């Protein structure tokens, strides 16, 4: 356990650290007089510190004599955990394939593209697909949809929800499973009820909401995805102090990453594109600047290739760069209808 977490005065803490004692285990086996000599404090004070330390250790419950940092996991445990959570499908097979099966929980995925490419459509599709019951291979969870631009149209969400239910009923019929268990009792209105929709109209509201999500999600443990559409809009105004903007953005990014990890949910951030002057010409790039690009685990870029929509994995620690076509239909995001499509590996 870290010395920094002990309930002792700042000067005592400072003395401990200055003398080289950064963890409890480093001084727990000393005698109080030895500690007093090292820190140049009275014996009584040293005894007091040792008492507080052993009390905290007991509370903490860690018998960590081997000095492991509190909260560390082995990679094996992490692999097990990852396999416990299925990914959230996008309803497009090619897109799911390049994503390694779908959007991953515990990670922040950023999806950006020009207006009209289908970012909001993908956001709504994910908010609905997260609700696919476990029996059908989904997570059976709920969604939080944070709308910063006003693009969410309820009739479109209803349309996509109805198509999703239809697809599931077809699937259930084909699988011929035990009908009692898989009888689909979902109604499009239920799906809409399971989307917690927030509309924010300024960056202050956006930040306040993201700070509040901690509390909200601990009261609604079945939320499995948080979608922010779009994360950029309110930050593209002029800030008198650009350093403030960077601080706010990184604070927000950290908060979101923590949410994803702590509650094992997927965070999907939809972003806009802007032009950047690189090497003498203007090129398309995701908005919010270079420092923001470190804030997400995965980055997907949606773009037009002729008349077809494509998605490209721009950055990911575990997925290889690849692009795949998809289409936006009346049923939502679906496979591309083109005959000559193929997944291009880069």
């Amino acid at each position, binding site marked *: 356990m870290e010395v920094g977490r002990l309930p002792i005065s700042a000067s005592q803490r400072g003395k401990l650290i200055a003398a080289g004692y950064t963890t409890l285990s480093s001084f727990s086996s000393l005698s109080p007089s030895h500690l007093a000599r090292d820190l140049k404090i009275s014996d009584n004070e040293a005894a007091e510190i040792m008492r507080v330390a052993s009390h905290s250790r007991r509370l903490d419950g860690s018998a960590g004599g081997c000095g492991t940092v509190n909260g560390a996991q082995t990679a094996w445990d992490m692999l097990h955990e990852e396999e416990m959570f299925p990914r959230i499908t996008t309803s497009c097979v090619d897109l799911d394939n390049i994503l390694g099966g779908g959007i991953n929980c515990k990670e922040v995925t950023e999806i950006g593209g*020009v*207006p009209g490419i289908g970012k909001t459509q993908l956001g709504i599709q994910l908010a609905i697909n997260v609700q696919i019951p476990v029996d059908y291979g989904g997570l059976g969870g709920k969604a939080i949809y944070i709308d910063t631009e006003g*693009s969410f149209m309820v009739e479109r969400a209803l349309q996509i929800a109805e198509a999703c239910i239809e697809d599931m009923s077809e699937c259930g019929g084909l699988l011929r499973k035990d009908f009692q268990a898989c009888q689909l009792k979902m109604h499009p209105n239920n799906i809409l*009820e399971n989307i917690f929709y927030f509309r924010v109209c300024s960056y202050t509201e956006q930040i306040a909401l993201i700070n509040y999500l901690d509390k909200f999600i601990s009261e609604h443990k079945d939320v499995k995805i948080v979608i922010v559409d779009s994360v950029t809009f309110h930050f*593209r*105004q002029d800030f008198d102090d650009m350093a403030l903007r960077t601080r706010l953005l990184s604070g927000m990014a950290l908060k979101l990453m923590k949410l994803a990890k702590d509650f094992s949910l997927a965070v999907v951030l939809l972003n806009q594109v802007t*032009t950047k002057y690189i090497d003498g010409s203007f090129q*398309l790039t995701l908005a919010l600047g270079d420092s923001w690009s470190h804030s997400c685990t995965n980055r997907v870029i949606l773009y037009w290739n002729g008349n077809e929509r494509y998605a490209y994995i721009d950055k990911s620690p575990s997925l290889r760069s690849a692009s795949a076509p998809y289409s936006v239909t009346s049923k939502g995001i679906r496979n591309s209808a083109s005959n000559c499509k193929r997944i291009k590996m880069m």
Partner: protein
Amino acid sequence: MTPENLLHRLPSTQKCTFGCPVLDRCLGGGIPCNSITELVAESGCGKTQLCLQLALSAQLPPSLGGLSASSLYIHTEFSFPSRRLHQLSHAFISSHPRIFNNDPCDRIFVHAVYSADQLFDIMPKIESFLENMNTQLPVKLIVIDSIAALFRSEFENTPIELKRRSSLFFKISGKLKSLAKRFGLAVVVTNQVVDLMGHSEGMNGLKVGNLGSLVSSGRRVCPALGLAWANCVNSRLFLSRNEEVVGEENGSVDVSACGGGDFLPRQTRRQLHVVFAPHLPDSSCEFVIRREGVFGVER
């Protein structure tokens, strides 16, 4: 902070009809409330006509597709077309005889704005105007005709100025959207087009939305104000006007046999396209402009 109950929005977002069933069908019911819709076209295609028509049909009750509302019409370029408005309103009253006691033109509040900064500065005034509205026919439609005129002349072509310009886009759009959310307004802005020079590799040729290229008057065009502004609107509709030889499309006229196209009868064909919208598929609709207003044409 509590989440909004989406079931309260059912069966669909409130929309303002155009007063024409064909146009409404193409656009899923009309112009949606609580969002910004952009009408892009070159001059003379009918943007202002459509806006005036909307300002009138907004006064219809919801049972007829309207909003039972007054409108705020902000014009920026030319003086307000009051003569045309009166013409349209006569036609409007005669087609809805029992609805209006007073002159519908009284329910359209007009304001002139000459610069982008001025537009941003009057936002608080607009907000208090909306707050203090009488509740009989509150303002639920704001038209800005045109937004392009506010930005096109006063910013130089340097990176700093362009950045300031695009930051102003987001400020104005953010404020309009927050007013739209607070009062349930439909916001319509009109935008101009610029010609596409040369090949389509540059930024202006970037495909934004459903149409590979926007063509009007036989030229390739693209909406003014660039990519930044495209990110600020929720939906974009493109009005095009092209000349066509009469009968060419159904094959009844052989152009080459007529010894040159000069003597062939031509007609103007006007079309409304959905460039992008979160609730609409790629669709388009032909329309005509008559004395009584803008009407869609079934093909």
